[in-house]
């Protein structure tokens, strides 16, 4: 029996066809060779005395081996034995079960997997579930924006998510004469809307840090503002919702300055107490108030569709799809907005009031911040029963957490202690979901699993009432009446520049050292040569070479 090992053979199982014989040979030649048979019907193989895992299948003569074996032989008939032989559709289904990082690793394996993994539709899902539809910022060349594959977009965005750990610039926006209570960022249009005790809604340009427009005083302290590309709403102490509709032709969407315009402005009166939170959806508008209700409105008709009754003052709300989550008193609620019924309630989430709420883009993760300075993370689980499970806790603040904002993977909180905390939730999600659940069931649900925040930003006065995140920037405002934009958009470029400079300096240093050592060793080389030259020229050279190496080694160390 011959043993043939052709290392050059393609493991090309992609080439498998009915009549061809393929085999791959790894470095360790297993003495139990397999004789390649050109006749598929042959059944003579001398493998019985070897590993019992090898098995002979009847007349087909196909051999199946544990893949960890150093020799894998595939007698090909109709069943090929590798993942690359599966039809692309099936491979796609398998890849569908993987996380982004694993998919990235798979794409490095070979060309066909690379193609499949990179063009897989799941990259779009990965992107959209974290950040929604990508904002196509004015591209320099429109062709570029379209050609970027979803995978590239995803990888780029993941990379950019590190910016919050980098260097920043601060833009300070002056304008409000009294404390600012609410901030809302509209990333797609690069606008920031703020308002507060001075009753004026101001619109700012986020990139330049300049004021664009401000409304007239609306009649009462404004505690909540929400905006999207079609509608801007504000609500406050008097319980009304004042809104502006976007008009084509207006340079910054909303015309705040013109006198009361019947067509584009409106005011809805229904709440019986101050409005503390507002949110917008595709078709609906949500408002929460100290009258203990949340009202769900139809955006076009401005009719109130549903009233959700709570047990206490509503502090904050976060809608998603057909549900809305709300923080009222110290409890967390989740409602179904179509029926208007309560899906889940978690009581006493915080000691004291639960002032703030944030939700992930998928709607599954909820974050609450409370008077006790703590932040909790919850996950909505919709198995047989709909329930909300606490996943993690942070206590980054010494004072109440007035506001939360979430943009994957960063959770930003603003507190009465004048600080912002930045928390990266990616680490919590990296573990397999079931693993997290198992871990929790063993740990007491109290304060045992408290994590530290990744970063704290501070240094400016007290009482930050509002924060929002967008376009690699964090916007916060509070008692001082000053709006601050923490600009991290250059962080990555700065980091690269710093690293490049450091690399250059290191290179120069190494070069200088090398020159120095060469000069000193040249001197010693001369001595060595004169001594050893009589005996063996070669030896002398070798010695000097060794000397030089030793000297250089010392310097390097």
């Amino acid at each position, binding site marked *: 029996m011959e043993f043939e090992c052709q290392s050059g053979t*393609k*493991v*090309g*199982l992609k080439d498998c066809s009915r009549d061809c014989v393929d085999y*791959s040979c790894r470095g360790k030649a297993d003495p139990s060779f397999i004789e390649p048979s050109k006749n598929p019907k042959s059944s003579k193989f001398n493998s019985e005395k070897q590993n019992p*895992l090898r098995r002979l*299948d*009847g*007349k*087909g003569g*196909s051999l*199946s*081996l*544990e*893949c*960890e074996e150093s020799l*894998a032989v*595939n007698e090909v*008939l*109709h*069943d*090929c*034995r*590798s*993942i*690359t*032989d*599966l*039809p692309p559709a*099936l491979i796609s*289904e*398998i*890849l*569908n*079960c*993987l*996380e*982004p*990082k*694993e*998919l*990235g*690793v*798979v*794409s*490095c*394996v*070979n*060309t066909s*997997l*690379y193609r499949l993994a990179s063009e897989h539709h799941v990259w779009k899902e990965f992107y959209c579930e974290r950040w929604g539809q990508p904002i196509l910022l004015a591209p320099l060349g429109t062709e570029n924006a379209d050609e970027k594959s979803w995978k590239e977009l995803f*990888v780029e965005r*993941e*990379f950019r998510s590190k910016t919050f750990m980098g260097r920043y610039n601060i833009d300070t926006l002056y304008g409000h004469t009294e404390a600012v209570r609410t901030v809302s960022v509209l990333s797609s249009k690069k606008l920031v809307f703020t308002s507060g005790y001075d009753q004026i809604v101001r619109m700012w340009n986020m990139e330049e840090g300049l004021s664009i427009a401000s409304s007239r005083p609306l009649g009462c302290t404004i505690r909540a503002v929400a905006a999207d590309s079609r509608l801007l709403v504000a609500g406050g102490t008097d319980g009304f919702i004042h809104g502006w509709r976007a008009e084509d032709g207006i340079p910054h969407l909303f015309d705040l300055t013109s006198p009361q315009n019947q067509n584009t402005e409106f005011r809805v009166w229904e709440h019986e107490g101050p409005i503390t939170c507002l949110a917008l959806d595709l078709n609906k508008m949500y408002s929460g108030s100290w009258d203990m209700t949340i009202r769900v409105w139809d955006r076009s008709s401005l009719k109130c569709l549903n009233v959700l009754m709570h047990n206490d003052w509503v502090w904050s709300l976060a809608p998603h799809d057909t549900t809305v989550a709300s923080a009222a008193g110290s409890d967390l609620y989740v409602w179904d907005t179509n029926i208007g019924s309560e899906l889940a309630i978690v009581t006493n989430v915080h000691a004291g009031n639960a002032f703030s709420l944030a939700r992930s883009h998928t709607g599954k993760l909820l974050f609450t911040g409370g008077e006790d300075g703590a932040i909790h993370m919850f996950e909505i689980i919709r198995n047989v029963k709909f329930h909300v499970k606490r996943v993690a806790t942070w206590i980054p603040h010494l004072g109440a957490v007035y506001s939360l904002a979430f943009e994957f993977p960063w959770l930003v909180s603003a507190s009465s202690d004048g600080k912002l905390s930045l928390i990266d939730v990616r680490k919590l999600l*990296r573990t397999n979901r079931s693993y997290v659940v198992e871990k929790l069931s063993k740990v007491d649900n109290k304060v045992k699993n408290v994590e530290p925040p990744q970063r704290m930003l501070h240094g400016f006065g007290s009482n930050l009432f509002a924060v929002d995140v967008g376009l690699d920037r964090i916007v916060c405002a509070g008692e001082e009446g000053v709006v601050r934009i923490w600009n991290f958009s250059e962080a990555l470029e700065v980091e690269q520049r710093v690293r490049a400079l450091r690399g250059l300096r290191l290179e120069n240093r190494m070069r200088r050292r090398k020159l120095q050592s060469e000069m000193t060793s040249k001197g010693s080389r001369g001595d060595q040569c004169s001594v050893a030259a009589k005996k063996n020229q070669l030896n002398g050279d070798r010695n000097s070479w060794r000397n030089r190496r030793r000297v250089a080694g010392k310097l390097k160390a």
Partner: protein
Amino acid sequence: MITLQSSDKDVFEIEQSILIQSGTIKNMVEDDFTFIPLPSVDTETLIKIIEYMKKHADKTDSKEKNIKEFDKDFMKKTLNELFALVFAANYLHISSLLELLYPSIADRIKDKITEAIRQIFSIRCDFTPEEERRIIMDNKWAHEGTEIEGTLD
């Protein structure tokens, strides 16, 4: 009773009620076939598939836990067996089995570095050296994670 014949010419007689879980077989039965040759499924795989279908044919609530246990054990097979099952289940249109198989195979890929994947699946790297370097650079972000996870586990 329907007769199935594997590629190795082994015949199996199974009740129709069990076999209709397979879309392909169901169609053939509706066309009044009682003898169904399956040239792309070998005997061993066919045995496993029949075992699966028998277990899943009886779906009463009390047995659901048993079925789940069975499924978990069923997936503890070698990769080759799993691939054979995927091919067969695809050909026979047994979607519930496929839904089980995909994550099981994916689990073997999870948390592995590229070289490990190549060895386990017997795939040879067919990139040119420049291509390989470029692709690894492009996917550096993916490799950072797996290394860390490797050490944590």
